[in-house]
Structure formats: structure tokens, C-alpha cells
């Protein structure tokens, strides 16, 4: 008999990318697949239907809870996540949690970490978290300070690309052409201005902190891997998680993960890791889609797809951003990228 091409059994069929995989060893399954997951944010919170942030935060914190054996404290910036989880008299949090202000979560976390350090509680770890507004805008100074001091804090930004808590206003993470309440889809240049905004993961890398990563609710395995890895390290760490907002993005409540996936698969949101300022790992695009595929499922870009015709020029601008990311981060294998 002639041999068929050798193809070793990889553990990836029947739901490789699913939350769980009964075919996997228990220890290798996701935290989310476990009945013992901590549900750091439990039911009854007041997030919108299909909220990406509620999901992303539970993913991240449950994973961190697992990694720290429950010895975890969270500091939360003001924002949707804070408001929908802790309206008096109820909280959804099941870990020690502190909210102070909109712009100071990284500094508060520094203080919490310092307190536990001085008390000899090295086992207790600290996460600070906030949305893109508190991270890239109002809390940016504190974040940079925390990075610079290399405080033992994992900062997680749940990026939904605008100030959703206050009713969808532009932040420095709002993408070009997106409609927000302060970048309306009217006039000569509808939506957000092209050429603005901050790439916080890259800025974080410029601080030479031990760990920077991007993640998404569309790739749980990757997200948990990164959070777990981050919790295995000391010093300032940063994870930037893309969390679609059905309200602000004008996407269906059941499309939250799908939209996040399109962001990744188009190259608009590259998934990577960096250690001490150098990119160490990049998640390749599995099934590439065009930027347009991502844009058109969101009403915040509806003005690019008017009845009278698509705004091909602007769509091309976004496509170039995607192409640039693909090239810059090597999101596709050479031959498939052609």
C-alpha cells in the first residue's frame, strides 16, 4: 500500500474553537467551559442584551480568578461596566471590587497592589479595568504612570470604541467614519474624522512593560490564554479586549461575537502579544473577510452604504487600514496574503 500523506491527529475537530470541547482533557478546556468558573460577574446585571463588555469582563476575570486561585481584586473605572454591575442595592461582582473614578483606575490599582505588597500578601493580585474612554482618554495619564512604574497590575481595557455609558460619544478609540452622537453621520465628512485616534496597545508597548496583548470576545481561547499568561507575570501588564457594543455599533444583539470576529478576520483588529516592547506572537487570520464585510453589519457605518451607492472611497480607506495591519503584524501567511 502506498502511504497517504501523514497527517497527525490534531485536537481540533468537532468544535476546536468552541468554548468547551468534550474531547479535550479537562485541564485543557477553557475556564468558561467549567461549571466551577467563578462567574466574576453574575446574573442580574443590567448590561444591554448581547453586551460584549459584560461578556469580555467575565471571560477575563474568570480566567484571572482561575489563574490566581481566587486571590484577585478588581479596580473598575467609571463606565458602563461599573454602572450596570453595581447599581445600589445590588452588585454582580463576586470578587473584591472597587470603583473610584473615571480616570484613576490604574492609580487606584497601584495603591491596592502596594497595600497588598506591604502587607506581605503576594498571592493577592490586582486587575484594573475600564472602557476605552477611561483608558485611552481620561485615565491615560494614570495608565501611563502605572506602566512607567511597572506596578504589579494587569490593566484590561474593554474597548467598544466610544463613550457608551453616556450615550455613544466619540473617544480616541473611535474608528474612522463611525457615527457617534458627537461625530454624526451628516455633512461633507459624516462620522468620525479619519486620521485620529490612539493605538493604546502600541503605546503600552512603548513603555517596555513586560506584557501587552490584544484579545477579543470572538476568540475565547486566545483571550483566556493571554489573561492566564499575564497573571503568571509580575509588573505592569496590559490587555486590550475588543468588545462590540450592540447599542453603539448598531449591530444585532446576537451578532456581538460575529462582529468581533469580523474585526479580527478583516485585519482591522489584530490579535497579538508583545513582551517588553517587542511583538512575540500574532494570531493569523483564519478566514479573511474584507473590511466592508465588517462595516456593513454595523449601523454606525450605515452612511457608507447608502441606497444611492456605497462610499467606495471611504470603504477603501478602511480596507487600507486592514491591509496595513495585515502587513505590519503579519496577520496572514505570505502566500495567502497575496
Amino acid at each position, binding site marked *: 500500500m502506498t502511504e497517504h500523506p501523514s497527517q497527525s491527529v490534531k485536537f481540533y475537530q468537532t468544535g476546536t474553537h468552541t468554548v468547551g470541547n468534550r474531547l479535550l482533557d479537562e485541564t485543557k478546556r477553557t475556564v468558561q467551559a467549567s461549571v466551577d468558573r467563578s462567574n466574576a460577574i453574575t446574573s442580574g446585571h443590567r448590561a444591554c442584551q448581547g453586551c460584549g463588555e459584560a461578556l469580555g469582563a467575565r471571560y477575563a476575570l474568570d480566567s484571572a480568578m482561575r489563574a490566581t486561585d*481566587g*486571590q*484577585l*481584586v478588581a*479596580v*473598575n473605572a467609571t463606565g458602563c461596566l*461599573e*454602572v450596570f*454591575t*453595581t*447599581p*445600589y*442595592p445590588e*452588585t454582580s*461582582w*463576586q*470578587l*473584591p*471590587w*472597587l*470603583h*473610584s*473614578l473615571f*480616570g*484613576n483606575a490604574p*492609580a*487606584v*490599582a*497601584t*495603591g*491596592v*497592589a*502596594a*497595600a*497588598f*505588597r*506591604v*502587607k506581605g500578601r503576594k498571592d*493577592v493580585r490586582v486587575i484594573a479595568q475600564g472602557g476605552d474612554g477611561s483608558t485611552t482618554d481620561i485615565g491615560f*495619564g*494614570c495608565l*501611563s*504612570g502605572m506602566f*512607567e*512604574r511597572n506596578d504589579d497590575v494587569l490593566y484590561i481595557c474593554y474597548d467598544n470604541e466610544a463613550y457608551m455609558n453616556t450615550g455613544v460619544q466619540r473617544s480616541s478609540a473611535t474608528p474612522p467614519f463611525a457615527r457617534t452622537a458627537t461625530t454624526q453621520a451628516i455633512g461633507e465628512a459624516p462620522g468620525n474624522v479619519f486620521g485620529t485616534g490612539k493605538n493604546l496597545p502600541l503605546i503600552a508597548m512603548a513603555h517596555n512593560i513586560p506584557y501587552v496583548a490584544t484579545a477579543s470576545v470572538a476568540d475565547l481561547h486566545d483571550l483566556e490564554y493571554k489573561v492566564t499568561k499575564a497573571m503568571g507575570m509580575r509588573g505592569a501588564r496590559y490587555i486590550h479586549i475588543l468588545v462590540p457594543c450592540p447599542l453603539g455599533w448598531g449591530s444585532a444583539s446576537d451578532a456581538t461575537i460575529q462582529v468581533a470576529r469580523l474585526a479580527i478576520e478583516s485585519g482591522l483588529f489584530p490579535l497579538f502579544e508583545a513582551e517588553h516592547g517587542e511583538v512575540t506572537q500574532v494570531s493569523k487570520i483564519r478566514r479573511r473577510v474584507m473590511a466592508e464585510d465588517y462595516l456593513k453589519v454595523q449601523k454606525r457605518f450605515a452612511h457608507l452604504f447608502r441606497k444611492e451607492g456605497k462610499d467606495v472611497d471611504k470603504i477603501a480607506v478602511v480596507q487600507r487600514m486592514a491591509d496595513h495591519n495585515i502587513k505590519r503584524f503579519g496577520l496572514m501567511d505570505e502566500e495567502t496574503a497575496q
Partner: protein
Amino acid sequence: MHHQIEGSEAVARAVALCRPEVVCAYPITPQTHIVEGVGALVKKGQLTDCEFINVESEFAALSVAIGASAAGARTYTATASQGLLFMAEAVYNAAGLGLPIVMTIGNRAIGAPINIWNDHSDSMSMRDAGWIQLYAETNQEAVDLHIQAFRLAEELSCPVMVCMDGFILTHAYERIDLPSQQEVDAFLPRFEPVQVLDPAHPYSIGAMVGPEAFTEVRYLAHDKQVQALQLIPEIGQVFSEVFGRASGGLIHEYKSDGAETIVVALGSVNGTIKEVIDVMRGDGLAIGSVSICSFRPFPLDELRDALKSAKRVVVIEKNLAPGLGGVLASNVRMALRGATATVYTVIAGLGGRPILMNSLHDVFIAASEDKLTDVQFLDLNQAVVDLELERARTTRHSGPTAESILRQNAKVGE
């Protein structure tokens, strides 16, 4: 033990004696020497089990303090002036969360025009933030108040500001009696927080509170200050028993018993005031003074009692409420509601303008003769002001007022 040291250094050592676990530092004149001093003690190993954290702003300084305090650490920071304003949001937050942080204010004016010298505009801006505010008259008192502040803060779960006049106290070398570690340890128990971030008890701290409970929360904040009116004298009493000297309390009276004219002031200017009172008493005038140590909570009853003999009260204000007059005077009037005494507001020492004995003497004489207008600016160069007002009336594009005044000052001085 007595030392001849700078006020800032004395406060740094006093703070260190209180065994703070987290100290956040950000430089701003005239407070900087204090955190430098604490930092040095940590580096020298004289203050152990303390995290000294250099932060990137005052906002971060207090925010770090908030986190540390919420996690159960005894926490300290210091600031002044613009720094206090920059951390304003966190100032309110720390009080709202009931975190017993102690913070020194090296009192300094607020710009523009930028001014690094002393007055009380900074701490006055935060008077209603829910912190206890104590004002030190001397560096010895500054030292003593810090030690008391930690105990007060932690008993009440309420942050405390110890205000000391920038430069005048912070940079003055004086004789200071610094207590021993044993004495401080005997006075200041371990910090037992009422709420703490703890994986064993995973509370959520800092919830959003709506109309249904916010009033109650605020009432409780007020009540906490009312409790402090009891606690501050009690702690002052215990302090004097342990350390053998009276320090702190709500107010200090000086020759006010039976005085017809009583001067009320905050902070270091009280020393100069006493000198003037001694002179005037020597001249046979019935004058005394009251130094207010606890501005928040404001000791309405104690002050009313202290001022009961006064026909007139002269409030020396190191701050200005533009459009009203003086903040302190307004508070004093609250204490005197229903009483017949006249309250004069004398705005003095703004932006570091020296408050001279002679000037005070003149103004007290005028007061005793009821020749003062209500809001009086001590040593105001009226000529310059008049010139500038005149110029502004005629010239639309005025340019910077302060520089214009400086130019006119030169002219007037010629």
C-alpha cells in the same frame, strides 16, 4: 525629644512615626520637602514596611492612596494649591468612600496668576469635600495634628487634611518636640478598616447610588463630621495625656475671655496675632483671639461660646470668596447667628503677602473703633488698583492684569 528642624522635615518624621504603609509622592511647592523627607526615611530604612510611590500627578497620588486605603493600608500623601485642585475629584471620592487617608496641605494660593506663596485658597476649595480639615498654628502643632489625624481618620473612616501654611511653616526651622516611636505606638492603634478589599470577603466598594439612597448617604457623611466634633477634643485630650502637651482640639482661645474685640483666624498667622494682642492688651485694649484648629467639622457651638463676650469679631482671612468676601468669616457668622457682634472680614496674606504686626495692629485699632468696612483687604495698594481699574475702563485690550499691576507697582513705587 527636641530638634531644631524644618517644619516639613518634622512632619515627615511625624508621619513616619505613624507607620504609614503606603505613601504617594508628587512634587508641588511648598509641600515637596515633606514627601522628600518621608521618601528619604524609607530609603534609609528608618521607615520600614512602607511603599513609597512616586506618581505622575496629584490626581494619581490621591488615587493610589484611595486604592491602598481601600485595601486596608494606612495611607498618606501631601499636596498643595493646584495639586489639590488637580486631585479634586479624588478628594471627594476618598471621603465618599470613607477612606481614612491623611493628607498634608502645604497651603498655597491658586492661580492664575500662578503664585507659589501661601494662602488658604487651596484647602478652602475642598472645605465641603467631606474631609476633616485641621489647621496647624505652629510646626509643633502640625506634628501633633498628623499623629492625631491618623487616629481620627481611622476611628471615623473619614479622610483628614492637615493644613499648614506653605513656606511660613513648611520651610521654617524651629524647635520641635518629636515624640518617640513608643509614645506614638501607644497612642495610635493598628488600622482596622471597616471595609477592605479582601478575597475572603469580596465586597463591592463604590457602588452607584441613586436618588433612593443618596440623601441618606450624604446625611451619614454629615453625621460623621458631627461625630468628629466630639472625637477631636477627645483625641486631643488623650494626646495631651500621652505626650504631655495640649495640641489639637477644635479651637484655641487667647485672651478672649471678656474681650470686646476678638480676632479669629486659621493657621500660623495666629502667632503674629498673639504678638499684636499682647501689645494692644498692654495698651489696655480688651482684645483676644480665637485660633480655629478644626475648620471641618466647623465648631459652631464652641466658637459661639468663645465669642460670647465680643462686641466685634475680626476674621483674618487668608482666602477670598470673590463676590462675597471671606469663607471663614461666613462660617463665623453662622456660629454667631442671632448674636449682636459685628463681624469684620479682613482679607490678608493672599499669595504670600507678609502679614505684618503693624498692619494687624492698625486694622485691630480700626476695628475696635468700628471703623472697618466689612470686607477689608489688608495692606491693599489702593493706588495701583485704582489705576488699573481706570485703565481697564478706557482700554478694551487690557493684557494680563497681574503684569499690568506689577508695572504700575513700579510706577507707584517710584
